[in-house]
């Protein structure tokens, strides 16, 4: 397990604009994600925060009619460069989805190691990687005796942590999480939040969440997204989580974090 100790940021968006067909959904998003910290993206439904997250590892382009402008820099390299293979981008920037999506035909073990097989890589120490990934996702103790079982035999919360372990096995620099707890019970949610905090020691995490307590519990930085009256969405306020929630600069942020709309 490699630990990166970097003080500088290595993921950064510059003037990111996004369209679905002719619809302009995001305008001029500039965020610098601090390294080895958790950044939460919050905002009401339809503000474009999930869409923005998907631009960060080029999953956005899988939607037909997707349009894009701007730059996403990973360690200074634009991941939207025409010479850049999206497959390489996604190897470095992992993703956990809203709904747990373990591969239904694979066992728990095969799910964790699926990233290697899918990217055509080999490892000398598969069992070591299996154990360390599952440990980092805090699910090792629950599944260590049933690694050959079908992934779908796990509970929803376990499935989501399995998906986290699956992403961790690829040892990404950045981990994107799209409302990872929205389909889970409070107990599973708490465990995943603890996992997120632990993981942030070794990687940069960006998490989209609807749950403002969750953002306050796990995030170092918070970005508030808003799309007003048919205008494209954008960042209203970005800063230290405590500042955003307790001393918001913008009145709209204040309204949102205090539950006045959204």
């Amino acid at each position: 397990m490699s630990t990166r100790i970097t003080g500088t940021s290595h993921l950064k968006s510059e003037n990111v604009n996004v369209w679905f067909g002719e619809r302009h959904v995001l305008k001029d998003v500039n965020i610098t994600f601090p390294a080895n910290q958790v950044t939460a993206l919050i905002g009401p439904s339809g503000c474009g925060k999930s869409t923005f997250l998907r631009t960060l590892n080029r999953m956005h382009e899988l939607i037909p009619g997707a349009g894009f402008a701007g730059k996403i820099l990973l360690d200074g390299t634009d991941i939207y460069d025409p010479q850049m293979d999206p497959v390489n981008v996604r190897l470095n920037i992992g993703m956990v989805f809203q709904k747990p999506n373990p591969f239904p035909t694979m066992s728990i073990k095969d799910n964790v190691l699926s990233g290697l097989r899918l990217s055509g890589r080999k490892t000398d120490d598969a069992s070591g990687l299996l154990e360390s990934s599952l440990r980092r996702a805090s699910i090792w103790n629950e599944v260590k005796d049933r690694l050959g079982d079908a992934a779908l035999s796990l509970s929803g919360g376990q499935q989501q942590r399995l998906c986290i372990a699956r992403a961790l096995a690829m040892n990404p620099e950045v981990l994107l999480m799209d409302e990872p707890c929205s389909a889970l019970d409070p107990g599973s949610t708490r465990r995943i939040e603890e996992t997120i905090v632990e993981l942030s020691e070794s990687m940069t995490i960006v998490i989209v969440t609807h749950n403002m307590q969750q953002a306050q519990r796990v995030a170092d930085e918070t970005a508030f997204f808003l799309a007003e009256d048919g205008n494209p969405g954008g960042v209203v306020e970005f800063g230290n989580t405590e500042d955003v929630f307790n001393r918001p600069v913008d009145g709209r942020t204040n309204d949102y974090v205090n539950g006045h709309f959204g």
Partner: protein
Amino acid sequence: MSTSSEPTSHSPVRRTLKAKPFSRADRMFFGVARSASYFSVILIALILVFLFIRATPAFQSQGIGFIFGSNWNTSNPHHIVMQIGPMIWGSLLISVLGIILGVPMALSTAYFIEFMAGKTMARVATLVVDLLAAMPSVVIGLWGLVVFTPVASHWAELLHKALGFIPIFANTSGNFSASPFIAGWIVAVMIVPIITSISREIFSQMDRELINASLALGGSRSSTFFKVVLPTASGGVVGGVLLGLGRALGETVAIYFVLNLIFKVNWFNIIENQGGSVASMILSKFGEASDAEISGLMAAGLVLFVVTLVVNWIAAYIVNKAQPWRKL
């Protein structure tokens, strides 16, 4: 360390993202899939073009008479006459007969399974109907020839005795076998499972609320069926019927077993011992066919293909419109 959004003034340059395969392996993978698709397109085009080219001499030498005339005489190589009017008419006649006989049977069976039968009976009936939908037609033809023809000839004879004064039931030959009537029954037996299966599915997908509301408003079962169930399901049912028609038109061996192919138009004497079918005619003639005659058979095949295509497209259009969940 963290900077907040700083909107810039210049307008962004929009790119449409295509998700094109990047690696060589992916490009090959999609390339192979694309080639397979283009191959199938080329294959169907090749069949059509080839049929058309080979059919052209027959169309040219026979003219419009090929479709409308009713004479096939290839014994004189210098004056070959190939006219398939009776076969085209025969194909349509037995298909229509099959539909007239088959649709009430299919709709009744679907209604029975869906609204009257108990759970177990409905399951068994559905299973049998679906199994029969997969039954090869040559087997149905064998049954039609050996088992059904004697029975149906007897029915035809009775019909003739009772109603012979009506031209439809006229019979001058005294031979009641191998008639369009029997071929129509065979077509009905072939298409009943298909239409039943489609209708039953439509009935089962119908909004029960609608039916219950009609019943609760004091409507009887019969008025509910005719005023609510049937109109709602009609699109899908008609599509299913046309699909069965498409299958009936192309039916070859089963019809060949049970029908006497004669090159003389039998307009409506359905229990007369003569009829026609384009597909069966092709089968009956290819063995001893000369080059010129093959061209005639190709032309007949092309006509049959085009008619079937039109019927199938109309069916697909109607079914897709009526029930978007059932893709044809």
